[in-house]
C-alpha cells in the first residue's frame, strides 16, 4: 500500500513543523515512519474498536435500560475471530519490522567506515583519513556510512533519532550500524543507554555536508596522519613486525591481504577476517592461531587502547604488501628511532 511521495512529503513536513515529529534525514527514515504509521493505525483502530464496544455496551446495557442480565457462556466463533485477526495483524508487524531491521543492520558493501569510540561521557569519532572528532560527526550526504563502534568502559548506545538508527556500544566487541544521510544540516546524537553521572551530557551533533563541503572539511581537519598511518606506526613500535614480517620463515603469518579473506585456524575452523576478528586476535591471540603456526603470540590486553586497536585494524585493512613492513623492520632495528614527542605515553 503505497501513498504518493507528494502526499508523504506533505504529511511529514506538516508533522515535523508541529514539533511533534522528528525530521526524516536519512534514506531509511521514511521506511521507519511508514511502519510507525501502520502501527499507529492499528493501535487507533484497536482502541476505537475496544472503546466502542465498551462504551456502546455500557450505554445500551446499563441497568436502567437492561434490568436483567442474560447469561451468555461464550462464542467460539468470536473467540476465533479475535484470536486470528490480532494474530494476523501482529504477524504483519513482525514481518515488516523484521525486514526493516535487516535493512538497518546490514550495511551495503560500499559503505564508508567511520569508527566511534564511546567512553564516559563522550563520543570520539575516528575517520579513516585521520580526522578525529569529539561529540561530533561530519558526514557527506548521499553516501552510505557505516559506524563501527566500541566502548571503552560501560554500555552506551549511539542514537541519531533523525536518521532512525541506534545501536548499543559495548565494551569488548564491535557493533555496527549504517545510514545514508539525505539532507544537509545538523542532527542530534544521543547516548541512550544509561551510563552513569553525565549520561545526559553525552550528546553531540551529526553534521551532514554536501560532498564538496565534506571534501573541504576533511582537508581542513585532518590530524595529518590517517588511521592506517598511525596503525603502521603502532605496528612497528609495538613489535608486531618482528613476527609478522612477511618472511616465509617468520614466526607469525603474513598479514598482507588477510582482511576479507577466509582463514583456517589451528582448531580446524574457518573464519572470515573482519574488524572484529582482527581486534580479537590482537587481544586473545590463543583462540585465533592460523593453521601451521605455533601459539606464541602474546596478548596485548591492557597495553593498547581502543583507539590504538582501531588504528591497527585500519592499517591491516589497507595492508596489501609487506614492503613497508620490511622497511619499518629495518628502521626499528637501526639506531635511528623515529623522533617521539617527549612525555607522550604510548596509546
Amino acid at each position: 500500500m503505497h501513498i504518493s511521495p507528494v502526499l508523504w512529503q506533505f504529511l511529514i513536513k506538516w508533522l515535523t513543523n508541529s514539533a511533534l515529529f522528528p525530521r526524516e534525514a536519512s534514506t531509511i527514515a521514511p521506511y521507519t515512519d511508514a511502519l510507525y504509521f501502520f502501527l499507529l493505525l492499528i493501535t487507533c483502530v484497536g482502541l476505537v474498536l475496544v472503546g466502542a464496544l465498551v462504551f456502546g455496551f455500557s450505554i445500551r446495557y446499563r441497568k436502567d435500560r437492561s434490568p436483567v442480565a442474560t447469561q451468555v457462556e461464550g462464542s467460539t466463533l468470536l473467540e476465533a475471530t479475535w484470536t486470528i485477526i490480532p494474530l494476523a495483524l501482529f504477524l504483519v508487524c513482525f514481518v515488516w519490522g523484521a525486514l526493516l531491521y535487516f535493512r538497518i543492520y546490514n550495511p551495503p558493501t560500499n559503505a564508508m567506515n567511520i569508527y566511534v569510540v564511546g567512553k564516559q561521557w563522550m563520543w570520539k569519532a575516528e575517520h579513516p583519513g585521520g580526522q578525529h572528532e569529539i561529540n561530533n560527526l561530519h558526514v557527506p550526504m548521499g553516501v552510505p556510512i557505516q559506524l563501527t563502534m566500541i566502548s571503552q568502559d560501560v554500555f552506551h548506545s549511539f542514537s541519531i533519532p533523525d536518521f532512525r538508527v541506534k545501536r548499543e556500544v559495548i565494551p569488548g566487541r564491535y557493533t555496527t550500524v549504517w545510514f545514508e544521510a539525505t539532507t544537509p544540516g545538523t542532527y542530534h546524537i544521543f547516548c541512550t543507554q544509561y551510563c552513569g553521572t553525565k549520561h545526559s551530557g553525552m550528546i553531540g551533533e551529526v553534521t551532514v555536508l554536501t560532498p564538496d563541503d565534506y571534501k573541504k572539511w576533511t582537508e581542513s581537519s585532518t590530524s595529518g596522519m590517517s588511521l592506517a598511518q598511525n596503525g603502521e606506526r603502532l605496528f612497528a613500535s609495538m613489535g608486531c613486525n618482528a613476527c609478522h614480517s612477511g618472511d616465509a620463515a617468520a614466526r607469525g603469518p603474513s598479514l598482507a591481504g588477510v582482511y576479507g579473506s577466509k582463514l583456517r585456524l589451528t582448531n580446524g575452523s574457518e573464519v572470515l577476517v573482519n574488524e572484529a576478528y582482527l581486534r580479537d586476535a590482537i587481544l586473545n591471540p590463543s583462540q585465533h592461531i592460523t593453521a601451521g603456526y605455533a601459539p606464541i603470540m602474546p596478548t596485548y590486553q591492557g597495553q593498547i587502547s581502543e583507539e590504538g586497536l582501531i588504528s591497527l585494524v585500519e592499517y591491516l585493512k589497507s595492508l596489501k604488501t609487506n614492503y613497508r613492513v620490511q622497511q619499518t623492520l629495518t628502521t626499528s632495528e637501526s639506531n635511528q628511532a623515529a623522533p617521539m614527542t617527549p612525555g607522550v605515553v604510548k596509546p
Partner: protein
Amino acid sequence: MSTTSSTIVNLPDQRTATIPKKNYINAEDGLLSWLLTGDHKRIAMLYLISITFFFFIGGAFAGLIRLELLTPQPDLVASDTYNKLFSMHGIIMVFLFLVPSVPATLGNFLIPIMIGAKDLAFPKINLLSWYLYLVGGVMTLAALVMGGVDTGWTFTTPLSTHYVNTHVVTAGLAIFVAGFSSIFTGLNFIVTIHRMRAPGMTWFRMPLFVWSNYAASIMMVLGTPVLAITLVLVVLERTIHIGVFDPSLGGDPLLFQHLFWFYSHPAVYIMILPGMGVMSEIIPAFSRKRVFGYTAVAFSSVAIAVFGFFVWEHHMFIMGVSNYSALVFSLLTMLVAVPSAIKVFNWSFTLQKGSITFETPMLYAFAFIGLFTIGGLTGVFLAALGMDIHLTETYFIVAHFHYVMVGGMLMAFLGGLHFWWPKMTGRMYPESISKLSAVTSFIGFNLTFMPQFILGYLGMPRRYHAYPAEFQVLNVLSTAGATVLGIGFLMPMIYMAWSLKYGAIAGNNPWQATGLEWQIQSPPLTENFIETPIVDFEAYDFEWLAQKTEQEVTTVG
C-alpha cells in the same frame, strides 16, 4: 439504597447494622497477635500497609523526577542525585510495590476464601514472606539512607560492577531477599490451589482471579530464582572481583543481560496477571453476568505465563545479538500479545447483554481496559524489530511500561481494593469522592504519559537529567499531569482511612456478587467458614445467586 436506582449496591439498614461481633480483626488483641499471626487475612493487611508505605516513597521520587524535568537544564538536583532518584523509583515501584501488590494483599486475603479453604497451605511461610519483604524493604531504605544506588533498576553491568561507587551491594542483596518473599508467596498459592479446594470446587469452577494468580505464581516460582542468582553474581563481582561479566577478564556483559531479563520479562507478567484477575472479578459483578468465554480467559492466563518465559531477548534487540535470534524473539513476542488481546475482548463482550452499573470499581475497570489496550499495543510497536531500533531506550519505552504498569496494574489494584474493601474491613468507602478520585487519576495519568510517547518518537532518551530545549513543552505537560495524578492517588489514602471509622456498614454482599467470599460475613471470621462449603455451582453463577437470594430472609449482624 434501593435496588431500583442505577446502582447495584445493597447495604443493610444503617440504623441497625453493626460490624459482626466476631471477626478476624478483633479475634485477638495486641500488636504481637498481628506480628506473629498465621491468618492469611491479617498478613494481607500487614502487606497492604507496607506496600502503601513504599508506594508513597517511590511516588515521592517520581514527583521529584518530574519536577526536575520541568526545565531542560539540570538545575533542581545534581546529576548523581537524579540518577539515584530514578533508580530508587524503579527499584521500589517494581520490587516493593508492583510485584507484591495484588498477590500479597488481595491474593493472600481472597484465594483461600474463593476456593473454600480456611487458610493458605503454609501460614507460617506466608508470615515469613512478609518478614522477608520487610527485610528487603528495610535494606532498600538502608541503601537509600546511606546514599542511594544509581545503576537504574536494571543493574546493568559493567556499570554496576565496576563503575559506580554507590550502594549496589546493599540494594542487590535487598532485592535478593525480597525475591524470596515473592517465591514463597507463589509457592504457597500453588500448593493451596492444588490441594485445598473445597469439595466440588473443580478447576473450572474457580474464579478467574484464582487462575490469574496461579499463572503468576508459576512465573514467580520459576523466574525469581534466576534473578536471585544474577544478583548474587553481581554482588560477588563487585566484592571479590570474579570475572563473570567483565570483558577485560574474559567475561561477557551480555551474559548479565540474558540472565537479568530472563527473570525481568516474566516479572512484568507477574505484575500484570493478578491485575487481569481483578478485572475478571469486577466486570462480571457490575454487569451481573458470567465472564464471556471463561475457559478462554483461564487458558490465556496460563498461555501468558508459559510464553512469557520465551521472549526475554526483546529487551536486547539492539545490543548486538544475532539477527536471527532477534527474529525468533520478535515472533514469540507477537505471539505472547495475543492472549492479552483475547482477554480484552472477552471482558468487553462480558458487558454485552449485561445489566451494568458504574460504581468506582467499574470505573477503574474501564480505565484498565482502555489504558492497558494502549499500553499493550504500544508493546507491539516495540516487538517489531525495525521499529524497536528507533524507539528503544527512549521515552516511548517509559510511556509504554507506565501505561501497562500504572494505567493497567495500578488501576486494577485500586479497583480491586475498592471492590473488596467492604469485605476486608466491613465498611464501604465513600462513593462520590472515590469516583472523583478515579476520574482524576485517569485524567492525570493520560496527561502525564501520553506526551511521553511523542517525546520518545522525537528521540528523547530515557534516564536523562537534562534534555534539549525543544523537548520542554511536552515535559511540562507531563509534569502537570503528574501533579494531577499524584492528587488522584493521594485521595484514596485519605478517604479509605476515613471509611474505617465512618464508612457505611457493608454487610455480607454489598455488590450482590457471586463468589464464596461474598457468602460470608464482612469482615470474615478468622477461619473464614464455619463449615466447609460444598460447591455445586459454577463461577459467576448469577442465576444460582438469584435463586438463593429468594430463599432467604435478610438478616444482618
